[in-house]
């Protein structure tokens, strides 16, 4: 019962956050720059949470996430711009094609472990970028014009769905199977877990949401270019996950918000921007090598705050 109650608190809290921000935007209190920053934060959270599922939960070190972002971005842009179909459909299609790309990459490369997987996924990300660079249909290097369709409402709905789905997946036997793969793959196998299956599922699910984020990303700017999806973009997403704490969903959310805000406000100081950004990263890693949240979640902190000793009330 307690868990169900927690879910409703989460729903209400989300609705309040959405409503307040929407009112502020409608009322003109938040100027378009801040509204756009909020959308950008939302997209980054979706990316961070989707990669968290692959790296933080399943322990598969993938650094080609921008590749799936690119697939989602281009597919959704093609659907709205070339076929004139509605935006929600484009978002969904971007997600599905990215998930298929995830399957295509995941099935052969998830046999690799650690550094080898990282290099393989990095290579994949670059391949995607170069493929789009050479397709004239989507504009090649000069990029593709996209109408601005992303609104705060679309972003928030996608964000809400992403976090809900990934939380629900994680807190089930399937999520536990993924965590067991991260913790000890040999033991997971010996416990009857089909480790390859769960690695591929996590990878495809993560790619799906990266694709959705790609759709939002494409329709938030007026143009998309292959250069937006280089490996530096993959590293940006990776940094959210590592900085937030590997294995902590709320950690990746907090890190995505924090770093997006820092990097947005540093845009006024272009000459020192990357230096300050890097110093922030170095300091966090020095003083909190386990990441901002470690493996804990925000909800754990609330448990302690209430003074409930012993943590979760299993079996009550």
């Amino acid at each position, binding site marked *: 019962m307690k868990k169900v109650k927690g879910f409703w608190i989460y729903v209400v809290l989300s609705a309040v956050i959405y409503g307040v921000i929407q009112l502020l935007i409608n009322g003109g209190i938040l100027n378009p720059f801040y509204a756009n920053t909020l959308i950008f934060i939302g997209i980054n959270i979706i990316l961070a949470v989707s990669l968290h599922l692959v790296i933080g939960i399943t322990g598969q070190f993938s650094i080609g996430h921008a590749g799936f972002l690119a697939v989602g971005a281009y597919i959704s842009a093609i659907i709205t711009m070339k076929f004139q179909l509605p935006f929600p459909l484009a978002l969904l299609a971007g997600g599905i094609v990215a998930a298929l790309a995830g399957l295509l990459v995941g099935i052969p490369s998830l046999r690799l472990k650690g550094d080898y997987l990282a290099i393989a996924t990095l290579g994949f990300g670059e391949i995607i970028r170069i493929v789009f660079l050479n397709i004239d249909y989507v504009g090649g290097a000069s990029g593709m014009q996209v109408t601005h369709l992303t609104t705060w409402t679309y972003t928030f709905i996608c964000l809400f769905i992403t976090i809900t789905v990934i939380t*629900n997946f994680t807190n*089930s036997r399937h999520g*536990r199977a993924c965590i067991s793969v991260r913790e*000890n793959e040999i033991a*997971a196998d010996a416990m009857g*877990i089909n480790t390859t299956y769960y690695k591929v599922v996590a990878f495809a699910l993560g790619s799906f949401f990266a694709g959705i984020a790609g759709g939002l990303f494409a329709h938030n700017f007026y143009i998309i270019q292959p250069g937006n999806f280089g490996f530096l973009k993959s590293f940006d997403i990776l940094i959210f996950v590592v900085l937030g704490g590997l294995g902590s969903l709320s950690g990746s959310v907090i890190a995505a918000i924090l770093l997006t805000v820092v990097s947005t406000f540093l845009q006024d100081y272009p000459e020192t921007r990357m230096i300050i950004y890097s110093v922030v990263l170095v300091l966090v890693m020095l003083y909190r090598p386990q990441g901002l949240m470690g493996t804990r979640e925000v909800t754990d902190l609330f448990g302690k705050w209430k003074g409930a000793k*012993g*943590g979760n009330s299993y*079996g009550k």
Partner: protein
Amino acid sequence: MGSSPLLKVQSAGIQFGGLKAVWDFNMEIHQGELVGLIGPNGAGKTTCFNLLTGVYVPTEGDISLEGQRLNGLAPYQVTRKGISRTFQNIRLFNELSVLDNVKVAYHSLAKHSIVSSIFRLPSHFSGEKEMEEKAIEFLTIFQLEPYLNEKAKNLPYGMQRRLEIARALAAGPKLLLLDEPAAGMNPQETHELMELIAFVREKFNLTILLIEHDMKLVMGICERIYVLDHGQLIAEGTPNEIRNNPKVIEAYLGEEAAESHAES
């Protein structure tokens, strides 16, 4: 005996490149037996376990459980057929709670799908609830219920061993393989472990194969012992037969010792 054996291994072996790690390995284990597998360091005992559990695919021979061939099955499939194991160096899911460690072992017994979990359909809740109740009941048997929410890595060594055995049993095996369960234990802990093994065997009507270096433990509880040296079986028999087998003494203590033992 007469009845067909639970586990039957016929001249199984494995080569790594030009190196024959184990060859011509024959073994029959009947329902309810407690069998030991011993041998000097590097004799290939753990390799045998890895062959039985599908970690390695045998390059020759046959392995079958209840007449079903296991060759070429992946480790998770072998576990589902009914062989589960513990490891020489404990392999728990450190960051998971004691309860979740056991729940992972119940994974393949539950039926609710990924879709039902994502949309939180009724089958998700009933499935998860059943897993949790079973796991708690199970951990109570092993006196681990005070530590349900403790992370596995925070348990003391002896309890980690006990949890690993509990987790292996939760997977519902017909045959349990224990790889050096007493490694690193003091005599008191070893004694408790012997009692635990005897207890689970009784309680779950289990068949057990164990690798062990602690001769007191092996000779104390095993009914039959296989001895492996340089990748080959050199003896098989009751603890008494093994204790007096010159080949075994030679493998452990060298040729001279075997001769002097024969003279005395």
